[in-house]
């Protein structure tokens, strides 16, 4: 007698420990094999772009904090960078160094959250505790600098709000060797672990061509062998002054993405080290900015390298205090689009491993 089989619909989320935010995934499964995956997004949609149309440029900065809340500094920067480009404002050197330090510290913090939670999703508990211990140190540093732990609202058009407090640069300097030692420990703990390697090798693989056609960016692109990092290829701010490498892997699988992110932490530490050495002893932190900020009529688009990929900001201005239209190219949103393709034909147990490796933040996906 033949057993009658039928497909089943499995709902994951929107409140699910592995979705890091509010994200729903509808899976059509045949036994344990996924036939079709449909992501449902929008649970965190706040209409940032529409709200921004009614706000002055400075007022939009706190809203950018809440998009990718794991690396708010890069979001702050992309908006300020766009307005500065439109208005032709020159940012003082000291402010640029503070911005780079804040952004790179944020990048490490963001990758640490990813590392901890990814391993947690795969079933390892202790990496999460270690990652959050180190992340807490970064957050304390940024808290001292900006006055908030996550929603910094630190950058301003033409500079930054606060100068570095006394002894802050020394604290950052001390943090670099500490973090290097810990990073070495992370590799000892996880990277060499045979169970972990078997779990992620060859899982969620895609090719270079697929990555480009899905317009993936950041680590998701570099893990397929494409050497593309805006900090190197289209240097903004003062990134051309630092000596660092762009980590690239060829695998295109979860392991390649893991290795790329871990290598990026090391490179960010190199940038921080050099920025601390080159840090100008004194100077202004705000450029010459008119009292009322009005971008000249026209449009602009700038893009920078956020921890999750290329974040872009498009502004169309009609010469008023508020933008006529503002759009953010949010990397998580674009990176997520490859998920249904990756999940098709995979075993159910691999869903979380693949979703986690793409590293999305739902605040950014939904905007």
């Amino acid at each position, binding site marked *: 007698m033949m057993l009658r089989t039928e497909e089943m619909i499995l709902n994951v989320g929107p409140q699910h420990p592995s979705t890091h935010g509010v994200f729903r995934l509808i899976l059509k499964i045949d036994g344990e094999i996924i036939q079709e995956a449909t992501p449902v997004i929008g649970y965190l949609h706040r209409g940032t772009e529409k709200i921004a149309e009614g*706000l*002055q440029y*400075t*007022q*939009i*900065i*706190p*809203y950018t904090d809440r998009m990718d809340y794991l690396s708010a500094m890069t979001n702050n920067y992309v908006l300020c960078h766009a307005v500065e480009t439109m208005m032709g404002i020159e940012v003082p050197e000291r402010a640029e160094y503070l911005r780079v330090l804040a952004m790179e510290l944020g990048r490490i913090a963001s990758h640490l959250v990813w590392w901890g939670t990814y391993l947690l999703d795969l079933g390892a508990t*202790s990496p999460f505790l*270690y990652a959050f*211990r180190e992340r*807490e140190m970064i957050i*304390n540093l940024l*808290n*001292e*600098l*900006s*006055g*908030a732990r996550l*929603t910094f*609202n630190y950058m301003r058009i033409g500079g930054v*709000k*606060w*100068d570095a*407090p006394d002894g802050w640069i020394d604290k950052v300097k001390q943090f670099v060797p500490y973090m290097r030692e810990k990073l070495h*420990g992370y590799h*000892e*703990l*996880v*990277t*060499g*672990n*045979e*169970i972990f*390697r078997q779990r992620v090798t060859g899982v969620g693989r895609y090719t270079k061509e697929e990555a480009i056609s899905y317009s993936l960016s950041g680590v998701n692109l570099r893990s397929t062998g494409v050497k593309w990092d805006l900090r190197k290829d289209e240097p903004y701010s003062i990134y051309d002054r630092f000596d660092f490498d762009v980590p690239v892997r060829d695998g295109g699988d979860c392991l390649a993405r893991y290795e790329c992110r871990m290598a990026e932490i090391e490179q960010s530490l190199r940038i921080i080290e050099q920025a601390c050495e080159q840090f100008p002893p004194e100077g202004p*932190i705000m450029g010459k900015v008119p009292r009322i900020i009005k971008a000249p009529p026209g449009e602009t688009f700038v893009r920078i390298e956020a921890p999750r990929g290329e974040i872009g900001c498009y502004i169309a201005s009609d010469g008023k205090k508020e933008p006529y239209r503002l759009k953010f190219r949010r990397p998580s949103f674009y990176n997520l689009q490859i998920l249904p393709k990756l999940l098709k034909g995979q075993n159910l147990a691999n869903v979380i491993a693949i979703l986690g490796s793409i590293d999305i933040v739902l605040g950014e996906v939904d905007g």
Partner: protein
Amino acid sequence: MIGLMKGLAYTLKELTREKVTYDYPHEPLPLPDRFRGIQKFYPEKCIVCNQCVNICPTECIQLTGKKHPDPTKKGKVIETYNINFEICILCDLCTEVCPTEAIVMTNNFELAEYSRDALYKDLAWLDENDTNIRRENKP
């Protein structure tokens, strides 16, 4: 198996390290001076210029002013000042634009209330909120 053993050795080594957690709430959390908690308001310093109201991105501040009671003095004095703390995002822009530093940030962040009405902070409440005030207010 070597990798696995190395990982176990690492966790064993970490076992003897110093504790990094705080005994919160029994021990107060150390916060930097710049930390942004709920605002403190000095009514006597306010010149009713409305800049905080205009800069607030969430429009959570409302104020009214009246003529100076002393007829020999020009300008206005504050009559009511309300912050709707339900929607305040502690962005710090109000204290940044205030020309007289009449509104400043404090380190007080434990703000849970049982009713939503209690989150409407009025002039009297904001005036009495005078602990842990930020020392250096302007960059």
